[in-house]
């Protein structure tokens, strides 16, 4: 085995792990006061890992990457693109966090550490070319996430969110492991290419059960219906910066991982998993759209919105083609910007005493009390609804286009119909902010770091984002080509 090459290919993970270990020591020595500079160093480490991984996406010659450690890990343009999105989301989350916690004194240096280790695990997930790498990466990111969810120890809701996430996540891991054991038993190997070869001829009942269980476990991690029940509770209870993180980075990682395992390991059995993915996509779109209507807490509403968006992303996967995968990645990139922006806008809403405002009713008349915030939030909402001048429309457009090209016209039609239902509650928020009598609740000031992240997201989501369609499409095509034809 060529260790030098393996270390080069796993560079982002190795770099992040070593940085994480050094930060652990700094945090242990520095104690609570070191939280601020630990956060800054963690952001720097994530930028460094991004620089190490970017070449596989930007340079076409490296886009097919290579296998590290005897095929346990594969670095290619697909993994690189997913990782860049993950790191960007983690950086956004870290930038907004310290100022959020300033009110209480709950912020501690372990927070950036856990985010860095979660990013290591997610990097392993998206680059896994073996079921064991997948599982260990998943556990690493999940364990860090459980702790992050209950990070605000004095808040009962945060503890509840952490416990719910932990118990249900452990159940999902069990389901996934059971599926993995069946797949291993019937394929005789845990490596994706070997599984693909073993399932070439056809599937026995047992192997099919294995695939179903693996997909069920993964559906849990991306909170696709019918495994979505934990999402609103966890998103509502976790501290808002953590929710920002949950709605972006782990989603990207789990979806990219699902795409790789479906198209690579189970690439010869598209018909078997396609019906599962189609069902999950349709159910997620419908439940996400209908479930959000009755919500009065904006974080719960955004949780349903993320379930809804996962449905659209899965439509791209259901197409099972390079175009579909590329569309999925474009949607994911836009989704990260929209989701990051809307949660940051939510965490900027504070009352005069500096407490969080989460009730939708309290947002009434925000356009008059805080016009910039209202404008940004309205842009995020309209973009999530997929209304044309905003960039969110482009993601929906490419996904539906890929579905139609793959002869999934019915799926695309139902998706479009459901996105009209979904538009209702996004528009309701805009209406409450702009046309209702001001509730005068959201009066607190926001920090510059929050404004900076929100401004970047708003620029991406605004019509200016269309300038990026060409390069984004090229990169997504390259990433999809590395995935679909690599197996």
């Amino acid at each position, binding site marked *: 085995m060529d260790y030098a090459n393996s270390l080069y290919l796993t560079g982002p993970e190795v770099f992040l792990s070593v940085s994480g270990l050094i930060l652990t020591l700094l945090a242990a020595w520095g104690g609570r006061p070191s939280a601020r500079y630990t956060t800054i160093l963690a952001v720097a480490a994530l930028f460094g890992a991004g620089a190490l991984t970017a070449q596989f996406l930007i340079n076409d010659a490296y886009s097919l990457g290579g296998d590290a450690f005897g095929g346990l890990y594969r670095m290619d343009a697909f993994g690189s693109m997913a990782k860049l999105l993950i790191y960007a989301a983690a950086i956004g989350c870290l930038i907004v966090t310290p100022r959020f916690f300033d009110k209480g004194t709950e912020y501690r240096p372990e927070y950036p550490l856990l985010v860095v*280790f979660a990013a290591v695990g997610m990097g392993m997930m998206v680059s896994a070319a073996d079921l064991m790498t997948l599982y260990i990466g998943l556990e690493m990111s999940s*364990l860090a996430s459980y702790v992050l969810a209950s990070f605000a120890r004095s808040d009962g809701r945060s503890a509840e969110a952490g416990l719910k996430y932990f118990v249900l996540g452990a159940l999902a891991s069990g389901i996934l492991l059971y599926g993995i054991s069946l797949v291993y038993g019937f394929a*005789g190997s845990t490596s994706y290419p070997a599984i693909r070869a073993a399932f070439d001829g056809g599937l026995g*009942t047992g192997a099919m059960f294995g695939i179903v269980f693996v997909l069920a476990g993964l559906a849990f991690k991306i909170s696709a219906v019918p495994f979505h029940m934990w999402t609103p509770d966890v998103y509502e209870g976790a501290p808002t910066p953590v929710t920002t993180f949950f709605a972006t980075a782990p989603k990207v990682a789990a979806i990219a991982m699902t795409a790789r395992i479906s198209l690579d390991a189970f690439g010869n059995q598209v018909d078997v998993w396609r019906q599962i993915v189609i069902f999950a996509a349709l159910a997620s779109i419908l439940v996400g759209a209908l479930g959000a209507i009755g919500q009065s807490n904006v974080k719960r509403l955004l949780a349903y919105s993320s379930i809804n968006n996962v449905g659209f992303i899965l439509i791209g996967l259901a197409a099972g083609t390079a175009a579909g995968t590329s569309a999925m990645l474009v949607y994911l990139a836009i989704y990260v910007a929209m989701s990051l922006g809307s949660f940051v806008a939510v965490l900027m809403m504070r009352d005069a005493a500096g407490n969080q405002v989460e009730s939708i009713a309290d947002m009434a008349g925000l356009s008059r009390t805080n016009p910039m915030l209202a404008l940004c939030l309205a842009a995020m909402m309209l973009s999530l609804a997929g209304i044309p001048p905003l960039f969110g429309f482009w993601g929906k457009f490419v996904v539906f286009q890929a579905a139609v090209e793959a002869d999934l016209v019915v799926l695309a039609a139902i998706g479009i119909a459901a996105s009209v239902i979904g538009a209702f509650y996004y528009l309701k928020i805009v209406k409450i902010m702009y046309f209702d009598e001001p509730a005068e609740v959201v009066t607190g000031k926001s920090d510059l770091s929050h404004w900076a992240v929100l401004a970047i997201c708003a620029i991406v989501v605004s019509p200016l984002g269309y300038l990026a369609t060409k390069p984004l499409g090229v990169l997504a095509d390259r990433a999809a080509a590395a995935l679909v034809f690599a197996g």
Partner: protein
Amino acid sequence: MIQTLAFYLFAVLVIASGTFTILARNPVHSVLWLIVAFFNGAGLMVLLGAEFIAMLLVIVYVGAVAVLFLFVVMMLNIDFAELRAGFMKNFPIGIAIALLLLAELVLGIGAYRAGAMVLGTPDGTAAAAADTSNIASIGAVLYSKYLFLFEAAGLVLLVAMIGAIVLTHRERASGPHRGHQDIGKQVRRRPQDATVNARPDVGKGISL
């Protein structure tokens, strides 16, 4: 001959200690019987030639899990009379589940006797090398072929440890010096800093 003897010894003890585990009235005794069962199970594994699993049983189950059970049983003040109070109420459900399990057992044995079922085509599974012990073979791949995963698993444990500390560690109630001992300061302190030689006049006190 000696193997047969050992097998029956371990097997009988496993079943006996398993029975005592559920029959013991005191839960602490139950856990102790469970430990005996684990040890004898490990003995059975050794007889099968799976010495690695035998060691795992002793180290992980006896060393960690059973001790954890003991701690939990001793620290949680469980009222056992209350636990048994609902016995008659839940009895029908218990019987139903027992019958279900019995039916599954009968079905399973019946299906087994009818012949093996082929579910798929497992092949390509690596055969164990005949001349090395399984600890040596696991070690040989764990630190070479699966080095990446081994290190990553270590990182997972580190994350779990950080998580446990984040969630449970409470800083002491902070006073200026409460509970804090500065050994360096103690050692640096010299006798002449702490003691004063005074020669008070007769009949007069001393003012400090």
